[in-house]
């Protein structure tokens, strides 16, 4: 253990903003990665984890500056090295896997050429071109692209997200590094693809004996894969240790909160903390049948059925391209289906004109995925929540205050603009706005996916409470099976525009009838860890 691959000691990084002195992004962080070790760095957005690894790779943006501390690779101190010297370390010694595979490959160059470059920068000069080509193909195969010859001649846009990420792994491996740093390598990918990529990374460690430093926001992923975990908050390491110790005996309050918030670590549905309205009959409020939608040659939705019962939550899960957002758009009346019907309280919604549809809006509301784009940046909170009331000519002042209170925000927020709110607060405002007209049904399209785990947990609890109090029914679209377990009564699993399975959550999760559902469940990070903490 005397010679770690990467050792960061007491690193502090500042961001300069204007002429004022910097805001610290990383303060006094130390970490090390040993040969063959899988270390995870866990933190929510703004924790400084990305700045930390940018510092490790010498890729800090111009506004950032290392104020103190050192970075060593195998006891060679590289702190303050310029680009020319760092170029000898990058690729050669440390490989990097970026976050977003869709933006991280040069769109106008063939994949093969991009891998060949990575080989050529890091091998002795003067070898024949075929040698580079062979090495690049080898690297693509090692990254798990069996059809390396074909991928070699393709452009990035011709590959799927998972294949692009494998190509990037190939690029990281091409220089035969001793350690790989991966920055959220799977957060842009579907859960089943994520599992395959992570499996592969873990395999590479065994096979090549390299060290891996994984940066992630997903505690489940970290717990499942690593030898050791470091938890970061506000630029500092608040907890570190082996996985087993963290699971059983987390010392920091923040880690315990993260553990509690992780959806995969809850055994059952969230319980309401407010008074429950007793008269939920369980009658059908929203019924969709045979919904079909084509975009050009693509069948986005293929004869999908859905039933939402009063006072319950029906989750719609699936990976990208499953058609779940198309379904949500049709339910909310944003998109017209090519065939099929939607009924709200027995009233047919398909084929309504704009005016009739507007009347329906009082009972049927929608919450968007991204609270950073769904609120008009020029409106204050008061104007935002009052908008639907004004649209129907209803009095607003008193009602806006009540609604704010319902979503646990106080009146000091009335005159703020969205830019002055955090992500969670914004989503609270969006929910308050959706509730303004006293709707019976809410369609929630990935309504918590853009939020950090701890915030996500709060919003989910809020939704459960509101449902109990107001007798609301939810159609809840999500890609996250952990969230389904927390909030839903029924679940519909979708794949390629079709419904593959539907039923009560306990039944579907305990005994999935369809192979795809089983795959999805198995891919949830940290899924097998649940029993360990159920006590």
């Amino acid at each position, binding site marked *: 253990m005397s010679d770690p691959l990467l050792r960061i000691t007491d690193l502090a990084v500042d961001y300069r903003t*204007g002429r004022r002195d910097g805001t610290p992004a990383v303060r006094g962080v130390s970490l090390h990665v040993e040969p063959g070790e899988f270390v995870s760095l866990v933190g929510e957005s703004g924790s400084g984890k990305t700045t930390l690894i940018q510092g490790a790779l010498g890729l800090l943006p111009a506004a950032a500056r290392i104020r103190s501390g050192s970075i060593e690779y195998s006891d060679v101190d590289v702190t303050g090295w310029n680009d020319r010297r760092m170029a000898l370390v990058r690729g050669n010694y440390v490989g990097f896997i970026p976050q977003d595979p869709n933006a991280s490959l040069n769109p106008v160059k063939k994949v093969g050429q991009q891998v060949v470059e990575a080989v050529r920068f890091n091998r002795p000069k003067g070898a024949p071109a075929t040698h580079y080509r062979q090495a690049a193909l080898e690297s693509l195969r090692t990254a798990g692209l069996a059809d390396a010859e074909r991928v070699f001649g393709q452009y990035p846009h011709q590959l799927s997200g998972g294949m692009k990420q494998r190509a990037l792994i190939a690029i990281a491996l091409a220089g035969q590094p001793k350690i790989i740093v991966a920055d959220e390598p799977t957060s842009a990918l579907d859960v089943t693809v994520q599992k395959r990529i992570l499996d592969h990374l873990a395999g590479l460690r065994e096979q090549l004996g390299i060290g891996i430093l994984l940066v992630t926001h997903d505690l489940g992923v970290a717990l499942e894969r690593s030898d050791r975990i470091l938890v970061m908050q506000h630029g500092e390491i608040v907890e570190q240790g082996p996985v087993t110790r963290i699971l059983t005996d987390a010392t920091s309050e923040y880690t315990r909160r993260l553990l509690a918030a992780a959806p995969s670590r809850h055994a059952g549905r969230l319980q309401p903390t407010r008074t429950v309205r007793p008269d939920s009959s369980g009658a059908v409020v929203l019924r969709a049948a045979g919904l079909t939608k084509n975009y050009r040659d693509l069948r986005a939705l293929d004869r999908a059925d859905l039933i939402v019962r009063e006072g319950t939550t029906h989750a719609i899960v699936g990976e990208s391209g499953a058609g779940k957002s198309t379904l949500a758009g049709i339910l909310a009346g944003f998109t017209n289906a090519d065939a099929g019907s939607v009924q709200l309280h027995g009233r047919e919604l398909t084929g309504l004109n704009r005016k009739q549809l507007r009347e329906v809006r009082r009972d049927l509301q929608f919450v968007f995925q991204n609270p950073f784009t769904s609120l*008009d940046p020029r409106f204050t909170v008061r104007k935002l929540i009052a908008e639907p009331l004004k*649209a129907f000519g209803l009095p607003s002042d008193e009602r806006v205050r009540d609604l704010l209170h319902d979503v646990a925000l106080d009146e000091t927020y009335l005159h703020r603009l969205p830019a002055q709110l955090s*992500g969670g607060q914004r989503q609270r405002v*969006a929910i308050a*706005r959706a509730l303004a007209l006293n709707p019976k049904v809410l369609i929630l399209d990935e309504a918590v996916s853009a939020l950090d785990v701890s915030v996500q947990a709060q919003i989910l609890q809020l939704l459960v409470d509101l449902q109990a109090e107001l007798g609301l029914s939810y159609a809840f679209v999500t890609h996250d099976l952990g969230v389904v377990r927390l909030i839903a009564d029924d679940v519909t699993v979708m794949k390629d525009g079709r419904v593959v399975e539907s039923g009560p959550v306990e039944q579907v999760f305990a005994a999935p009838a369809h192979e795809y559902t089983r795959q999805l469940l198995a891919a949830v990070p940290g899924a097998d860890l649940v029993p360990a903490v159920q006590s």
Partner: protein
Amino acid sequence: MTALATGWAGPARIRAHSRRLGDLIRQPVLVLSWIVVLIVIGWALFPSVFTDHSPFAGDTTASFVPPSAEHWFGTDRLGRDLFARSVYGARTTLTATLLAVLIAFGLGAVVGLSAGFAGGLVDTAIMRVVDVFLAIPSLLLAMVIVSVLGYSTNNIALAVGISSIASFARVMRAQVLTVVNQDYVRAAYGLGVGRLGVMVRHVVPNSLSSVIALAALEVGTGVLAVASLGFLGYGAPPPQPEWGLLVAEGRDYVAVHPWASILPGLALAVVVIATHRISTSLRKENR
């Protein structure tokens, strides 16, 4: 996202204001640009405050006097003070520019908004027409329009304005299309707000900002276009001072008396550079 999430505490509006002032002081070029523009507006509004000389009456015995304390820009062939002519010329040129920008901005915004918001066939039809006007370089189009309307400063303004409608319309439409596809516009429809309400409350306010930045830029470009047409002789008849015309009048003697055209021309260039600098800062603030 991080900055947004953490930057909300405190009386943010007041802080934003004081920060803006602080930023301004830290950018001397921007401050200088504002000063230049304000002075020139002063020239246009109250020319007699800035010079004691008359722009028309000259002393023919003192023709082509080089720049001096008495005649800052020197005098022209007829012995008229060129600084005075530049100061009085500001009114002609700036009025024409203002008129041109108002025409281009107003009509362009309406056309772009209609195209972007209506979509479909209306959009296609409007944009094909806009294509045609973009295909004729605006200086050429302005020349043709002036030739039809007759030579005068007002007609120059009209011509420059009309020839820039198309580019305003295109920017406005692009911006409207971006805004229309934003979640908050879909959200407004979902909340039961009608089409007109969505347009007035969300689309127009959120689209205008980038068009206003373009309008600021167009002030500079407009001054150039007006002066260019004046230089070519399509503007006010000669005794009237106009910036382009001043340069044109001095041009015949440039070999011997270079200041006669270069100094008024430089004044013009400084004003345009200043407006460009200001419009750049406006665009950055929008982002």
